[in-house]
């Protein structure tokens, strides 16, 4: 059965990816912490947090793939969910600083002190409690996605209109978070974190754990995403992408389907943001910039949308390339990046994984055709014989 085979392959691929991620989650911290710095196997802390960052981006790309690759919603505002998750984590980390800030104020973060705030704004309460903050990492992006999606999907805002208003959303949030009056530190954002759950964020051990957490969360989200897309719901999702009105006339509530997916995806993006912040040490409104969200789309497209694994590979590759080029050829890296986008859309419209998969499928199809051909060859003499009679 072809369909069964395809499913099993899909299964296998996710399982392999998850296994690799879990392996990396163990191996990289181990190589970082347990080998001496001059050993050939040693992975410097620098590389650990760099790759931790890539994994967060990979998770963000995975989240986007769920809505774009499977549901056909091209969100140009996923950076907003990522940033909100990041801010929730950032607020927790800020509160953990306690009286170690430069002004020694036990309650107020530094930026509030020098802008003369007298008390903590209401929305900062509770963030000193890790569990609450982690809940907010999911709730805040989820809620925004829910409210936004509730209106947009109910009004059947579609296609490019939806893309543009998601862009408007992240742009508006960027402007809002830039405002110092909002109480999120304005353009400087939240920074100079000290520790997380009592462990210093800068310590190698903490970084290694954060890296491992990123890998594990990515693996987990991959499993969740793959469970979603392989369920009947996932098939409906693809149906929505390909023929939305058919799904509707079959009696499905398309707006609920989209809303659910959008919210789940926003939460994943939030988790990515939350893991990102302690590893890079800053969150500021720049993360809301529309250009960032477009870049996420690019990673997803490069890796191959609608494949789950593709966006992960795309995010890691593009960002590794970015790290390399911005260091090695700072003057020309934009040419490389721009060229890559054009090349991928022109020559690899299905992305890396999509193209590989297509090659795989067509080889299989060719084999099948060859089989059929062989079958027919065998059959032909009979007919000829019959004709000869």
């Amino acid at each position: 059965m072809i369909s069964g085979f395809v499913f099993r392959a899909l299964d296998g691929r996710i399982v392999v990816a998850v296994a690799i991620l879990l392996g990396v989650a163990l191996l990289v911290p181990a190589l970082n912490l347990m080998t001496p710095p001059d050993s050939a196997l040693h992975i410097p802390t620098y590389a650990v947090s760099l790759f931790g960052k890539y994994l967060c981006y990979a998770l963000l790309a995975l989240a986007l793939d769920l809505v774009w690759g499977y549901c056909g919603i091209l969100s140009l505002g996923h950076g907003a969910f990522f940033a909100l998750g990041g801010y929730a984590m950032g607020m927790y980390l800020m509160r953990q600083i306690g009286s170690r800030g430069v002004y020694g104020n036990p309650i107020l973060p530094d930026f509030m002190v020098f802008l003369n705030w007298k008390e903590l704004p209401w929305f900062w309460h509770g963030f000193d409690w890790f569990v609450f903050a982690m809940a907010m990492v999911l709730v805040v992006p989820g809620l925004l996605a829910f409210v936004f999606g509730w209106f947009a999907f109910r009004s059947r805002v579609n296609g490019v209109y939806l893309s543009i208003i998601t862009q408007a959303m992240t742009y508006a949030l960027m402007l809002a978070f830039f405002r110092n009056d909002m109480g999120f530190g304005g353009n400087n954002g939240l920074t100079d974190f000290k520790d997380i759950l009592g462990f210093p964020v800068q310590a190698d051990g903490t970084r290694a754990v954060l890296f491992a957490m990123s890998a594990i969360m990515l693996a987990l989200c991959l499993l969740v995403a793959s469970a979603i897309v392989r369920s009947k719901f996932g098939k409906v999702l693809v149906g929505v992408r390909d023929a939305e009105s058919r799904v509707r006339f079959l009696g499905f509530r398309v707006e609920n389907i989209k809303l659910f997916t959008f919210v789940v995806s926003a939460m994943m993006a939030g988790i990515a943001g939350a893991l990102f912040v302690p590893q890079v040490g800053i969150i500021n409104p720049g993360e809301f910039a529309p250009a960032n969200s477009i870049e996420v789309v690019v990673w997803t497209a490069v890796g191959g949308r609608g494949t789950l694994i593709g966006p992960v590979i795309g995010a890691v590759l593009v960002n590794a390339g970015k790290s390399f080029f911005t260091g090695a050829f700072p003057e020309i890296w934009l040419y490389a990046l721009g060229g890559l986008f054009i090349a991928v859309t022109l020559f690899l419209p299905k992305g890396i994984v999509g193209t590989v998969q297509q090659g795989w499928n067509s080889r299989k199809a060719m084999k099948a055709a060859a089989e059929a051909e062989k079958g027919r060859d065998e059959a032909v003499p009979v007919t000829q014989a019959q004709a000869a009679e």
Partner: protein
Amino acid sequence: MNMIAETRQKSLLYLENVSVSFDGFKALNSLSFVVEPGELRAIIGPNGAGKTTMMDIITGKTRPDTGTVLFEDAIDLTKKDEADIAQLGIGRKFQKPTVFESHTVWDNLELALNRDRGVFATLFYTLSTEDEARIEEILSTIRLTHRKDELAANLSHGQKQWLEIGMLLAQEPKLLLVDEPVAGMTDAETAETAELLKEIAKTRSVVVVEHDMGFIRELGVKVTCLAEGSVLAEGSIDFVSNDPKVIENYLGR
């Protein structure tokens, strides 16, 4: 009890004085139309007569400006959206075959099955033997059993039309709206489709919109001719095709 009230009570689908206009263009002009339970009805009419718009209104895609649209004499369809109406038991086949091309034939039918369509119900759905049997049954009805594991994209045009009809069957509707089912089909396929529809109409009401007069003749059912958004004539195919207004408006051209 007067005539109108009686008709309405007996009806499966009841449209009265339905009008709708787009940017000044009157697509439907106080259209009235009744379908009885178990009826197979054909609709003909020139382009722009309002056939598809009528279907849009019945299935909740378009809201009428004025008029009554009732299902089973109780449910006001103008207040419902597509999903609600589909769940009530009205299925619709589009003019252009619309199936899920990146799914297999089997999956297309599985999605169409009349089961709980909620988000979580679909997330945790597993295929039961009962459902499996039902899909196999439909597959044989639409003559696609041998291609059940292929992607719908690889089907021929006619097969896609059948698959779509099959999906409607899986939906178990009380009323089936079928828009130009034989467009682009070979003669043999057309004949087979006519058989298929007749078979289906045994257990439910079917409304077929078609241009192909031969096909309608083959169906041999009551025909409604629409023009400029309202009913021009209604009756047997011979009656309608001899109506001078119909000849002038439709057949004569």
